């Protein structure tokens, strides 16, 4: 009844198997499995059923930084269990062998990986997956070296920037597993740090759909609160969050939240906006939520438009321009967004900004809450497969990339050019080479088609455009019709803004509850930092 995870295979970027861990049963081997997986057309679903193998196999796949992870089972298993487990494996491997996860890193620390995989799943039943708990039971002799060699490049943030001494203590504590009740499954025992730090990173990913009229159909910001805690002992923390409309409304702003098991749900219910928890050591995801940026959409029609959304970039696409309708135009309006305000960071002790650039705090370096900046602005326009080439591309700013016959046109605007104002890109498409003669021979059918159009209810835009043209009317109209299927149907905008959140959510304070906490020395004041980031990965989609 309960399915078992039978094997885990990892392949590198050249699809060479670099690791196969068999948990139970007699699963297919890595080389056998790969061609079966690859035989599915792209994009490959993350869950594939192979009925013709012996035994019939369920394959779950995940691709992370060019590594392909396959997990198999031969009987009914909850697919989400398998996929979540794969995600956890990746998280844990990143934490232990360093991120980004590269094939050679896995290969050079097989001993650690073996222990991890062995602990995470016991003969097919998923068992310990908490990184903190794993640190207690996994021996990592060379961990420190790998950390230094692998990811401690200057300027990096995250837990890699922790002083190495704390990692030392992490190792020395190994083996001294508390003989009796572990207080908290997610926090390892005897945490010691020489410098205590607390960072809150709030990341919101935008997902906005704009109708051809420019009216937003749906606009969501999916938020994630990542927390990094490096505090000795067992700290009890209180994180206060507020929305622009005050603290009472936080529940209506942060919708459908999910929490790390450490968060006390009762407290959140009682006082929304307050998260009280004993954090795991290191970086973890504290909570996730979503914000509907169009809260009154169900109210009714029309009044909302894109500018009400207060997005840093607005986009508009027009197609079928020019005499033959072969042009399309993308317009961007870049506006300045105001930051999250400094009231929050003043409550936090300021930090030396060189250590972690871009964190909220004082100072006017780019990308802080006081001066949010727009970066990585890219407009992606998927083109129909019939488009043979773009004969002309004129961008008022930035540069365009397009390979003839390619699927996408990309328009990059570098950060320094992404200043307030408008920008346009106009392109001319060229369709498949059509022999005019041939086309004419089909003529009666096409003509008939126009007959039909006229006497039925529809009037295509093609026709409305053909009217003003007197000369060559029919041939142009035909071209317009032809070009119509070559027009893109949407454009997606990607960017990132540091120091600004679409939802306007703010961190009011992060406090250590000294009464409930243990093992923190008197008067220890940890460094605190808050970082806001809004990201759109093709998240703003304008239709046309």
């Amino acid at each position, binding site marked *: 009844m309960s399915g078992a995870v039978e094997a885990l295979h990892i392949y590198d970027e050249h699809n060479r198997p670099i690791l196969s861990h068999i948990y139970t049963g007699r699963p297919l081997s890595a080389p056998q499995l790969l061609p079966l997986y690859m035989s599915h057309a792209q994009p490959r679903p993350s*869950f594939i059923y192979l009925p013709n193998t012996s035994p019939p196999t369920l394959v779950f796949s995940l691709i992370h930084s060019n590594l392909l992870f396959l997990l198999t089972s031969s009987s009914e298993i*909850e697919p989400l269990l398998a996929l979540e487990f794969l995600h956890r494996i990746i998280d844990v491997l990143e934490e232990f062998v360093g991120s980004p996860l*590269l094939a050679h890193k896995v290969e050079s620390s097989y001993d650690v990986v073996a222990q991890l995989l062995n602990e995470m799943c016991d003969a097919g039943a998923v068992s310990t997956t908490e990184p903190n708990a794993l640190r207690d039971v996994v021996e990592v002799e060379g961990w420190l070296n790998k950390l230094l060699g692998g990811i401690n490049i200057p300027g990096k943030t995250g837990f890699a920037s922790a002083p190495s001494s704390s990692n030392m203590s992490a190792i020395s504590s190994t083996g001294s597993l508390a003989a009796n009740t572990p207080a908290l499954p997610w926090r390892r025992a005897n945490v010691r740090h020489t410098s205590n730090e607390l960072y809150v990173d709030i990341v919101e990913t935008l997902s906005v759909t704009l109708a051809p009229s420019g009216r937003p159909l749906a606009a969501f910001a999916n938020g994630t609160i990542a927390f990094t805690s490096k505090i000795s002992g067992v700290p009890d923390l209180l994180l206060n969050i507020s929305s622009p409309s005050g603290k009472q409304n936080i529940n209506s702003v942060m919708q459908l939240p999910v929490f790390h098991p450490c968060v006390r749900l009762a407290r959140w219910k009682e006082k929304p906006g307050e998260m009280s928890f004993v954090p795991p050591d290191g970086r973890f995801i504290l909570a996730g939520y979503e914000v509907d940026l169009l809260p009154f959409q169900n109210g009714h029609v029309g009044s909302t438009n894109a500018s009400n959304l207060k997005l840093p970039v607005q986009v508009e696409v027009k197609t079928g321009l020019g005499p033959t309708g072969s042009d399309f135009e993308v317009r961007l309006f870049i506006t300045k967004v105001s930051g999250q305000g400094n009231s929050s960071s003043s409550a936090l002790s300021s930090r030396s900004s060189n250590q972690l650039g871009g964190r909220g705090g004082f100072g006017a370096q780019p990308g802080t809450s006081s001066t949010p900046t727009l970066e990585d602005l890219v407009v992606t326009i998927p083109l129909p497969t019939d488009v043979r080439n773009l004969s002309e591309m004129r961008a008022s700013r930035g540069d365009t990339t397009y390979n003839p016959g390619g699927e996408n046109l990309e328009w990059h605007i570098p950060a320094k050019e992404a200043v307030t104002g408008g920008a346009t890109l106009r392109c001319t498409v060229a369709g498949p080479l059509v022999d005019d003669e041939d086309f004419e021979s089909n003529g009666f059918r096409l003509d008939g088609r126009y007959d*039909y159009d006229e006497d039925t209810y529809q009037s295509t835009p093609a026709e409305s455009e053909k009217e003003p043209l007197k000369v060559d009317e029919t041939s142009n109209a035909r071209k317009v019709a032809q070009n119509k299927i070559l027009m893109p149907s949407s454009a997606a905008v990607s960017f990132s803004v540091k120091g600004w959140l679409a939802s306007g959510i703010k961190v009011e304070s992060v406090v250590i509850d000294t009464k409930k906490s243990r093992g923190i020395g008197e008067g220890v004041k940890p460094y605190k930092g808050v970082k806001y980031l809004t990201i759109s990965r093709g998240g703003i989609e304008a239709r046309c």
Partner: protein
Amino acid sequence: MESVSRISSLLESARELTLDAAQSARSSRSSLKTMSTAQIKKLLDSRNDREVLEGLRRVISMMYRSQPCLPFFSSVVKNVASPNIEIKKLVYIYLLSHAEAEPDLALLSINTIQKSLSDSNAQVRALALKTMSGIRVPVISQIVSLAIKKGLGDMSPYVRKAAALAIPKCYRLDPGTLPQLLEYLGTLLGDKQYFVAGAAVVAFLEICPERLDLLHKHYRGLVKKLVDMDEWSQLATLRLMTVYSRKCFPKRTRRVRKSRRDGTEGFYRDDDDEQEEEEEETGEVVEVLDPDLELLLKSIKPLLQSRNSAVVVAVARCYVNLGTQEYVNSSIGPLIALLRGPQDVQHIALYNIVSVCLTRPEAFVKYASHFLVRATDPSQVWELKLELLTLIFPHCDAYLRSIILNELEHFSGGSDKELVREAVRAIGRCAQSDSRTSARCLRLLLKQITSLDGNLAAESLTVIRHLIQQDPASHTNTVIRLAKNLDTATNPRARASIIWLVGEFSGIDGENNIAPDVLRILAKGFADEAEPAKLQIILLAAKVYLHHLNRSDIQPEVQKSTPESPGYDDLPSMGNEGFRDLDNPLDTTYQAPEPEPEHPIITLWNYILILARYDTSYDLRDRTRLYKALLAVPSSTQLASLMLLAPKPVPHTPSPSESRTGFTLGSASLVVGEEGGVNGLRGFEKLPNWVKPGYEPNPSLRDADVGTVDYDKTRIVPAGERLDSAVRDTRTASPSKTNGFGAAGLGKEKKLEDWLAESEAEEESGEESSEEDAEESEEEESSEEAEEESDDDDNERDSLVK
């Protein structure tokens, strides 16, 4: 919830992947230099821990790369006794994967591992237990069983957890150990430590999911521990509890009115449900939840905010299959929240959402904007999203409906052919469900038939045909419009659809119908048509002719008698005679009307018959012959009318996922669908039906647990809140306190239960239960040693029995 790695990569976008890769290429390759077998062996045989470790690392690397490393078996296993824990762990890992191939050598290591079971370090004990049970050498099953028994009484919860996880492994080694294992499970299920109990549930599901009788007295305890368990144990427990509840709590709805209360009370007293009744006071039809079931449903509510998507779906499954409408509604938001996860999770979550949506579409209306298709969605995702949009469509208000239709219209004009096709089908389903918008849907569809893509045109025509069939009366004009389209439509299937429709409407308006005219035009180009269209032309001709006959029949009744007799005479002979009789009846029919100038329809019919007769397609010729025979006798059209003019059933296109409704929410079979077989994938089991009232086990079985229930009655709190008490525990920790015998107070009842259930093993269990009783009373004096002793006794007896 997003994974840490994904968020980290967002936060540190300027990651120098290439730099890292380059750096590593230099450093790592050197260390991976292969060593000869002899060299590695030498390392393994060394006395220096460091060298041994290095050797082991080499072996593990080879193991993971699927290189043969059996030759090292003896050298590796020798190190099992090493006091160095790192060495020990690596040796264990090696043993786990290779012991099966070298069972004899592996046995040599068992003794050492057994010694580790008594190590002072809990981690070592747990590891030893885990390894021992994981070695796939069936001979040692008894030793493993004993080791598990020892582990049960261990002070450290880690060891007890390892013992729980070892149970299914031991069962796989030797199913004959089941009776002992069940006994161990009984103890572990009642363990106070939530993660021990969780592991015990996993083991339970693996070895004896049908033995629900073992669960009764642990039910409340498990439900209360559920929130604190780790996510994977939560999943197992939720799965178990869903089945348990179906089998133990009969579904009751009740009509209660205050005035008639006495009567109902009397009625329900039979069902042993007094407490419930007192709570219930008013209301019309209320689904009555057993208090124990309600306890489960309430206590898993916080899990809807779990970060683990599988847990959220498992709770939803529990609510959908066990709970009332309110509970289901509360799980819908969290299900929608899964859509913001990574794409793989999103995809699977959508299947589950569709599955819930099929039964309760209304509740999803407010989340409509989550289902808008994005240009970046892969086909598997937009398919499900389109389905969701059509499912909720009938329940939306006008504004949302127009948004959904706009959405579908947008995609039906796109360039991705698959997407266009699905969008067209979706429009059809929308129109089907709501007659008011069907005019608009039809307009959208009519746009498509002129499409340059023939398949699309055909697809939309099929959908149009379905729509027209649903309400033929109001669509006569549409048919005329479609008929005009025959000039331009090129796709044979599209043409066939139109022609068929014209045929269906050929009986309306008598002589004014367009059908004969359409037929006339089609007859001109008959030779150029494709086969499907030709078939329909023949059918159309037959219908037109039949209608003509029917009309003319009414007026000249007299004509009837003359041609009838020859027709009937010839008919029976037709089957036997082959081609010859094709001509004979023809002749007779032609001759009959000849005197007068022929009606054009008759001429047309004959012309078509001749055309079809010389067609290359067998099928076409056969059908022609059939129609010809049917209509051979102009005066007797009854049979033909029955066959050709029968009212057609209104087609209903089901939502694509309706075939999956039999599969349980959250299962892989739900995702795979029919491909996995009618009964789902291997290992899939449908949820049992609700137990019939009166057949459920006595609820008082669950009360047996009173002792432990008191212990944490108010503690449905996240583990976080246990911190303080845990802190105190660590200070004052005494061995007896953490001993995990939560079920101590109830040994008696449980044993009785067991005894009843295991009547086949009467003698042994009988002994055991008395043994257990003794053990239990000893334990109540809370003396550690006494228990150890009784353990030993048991061990001895076990080995004697076997």
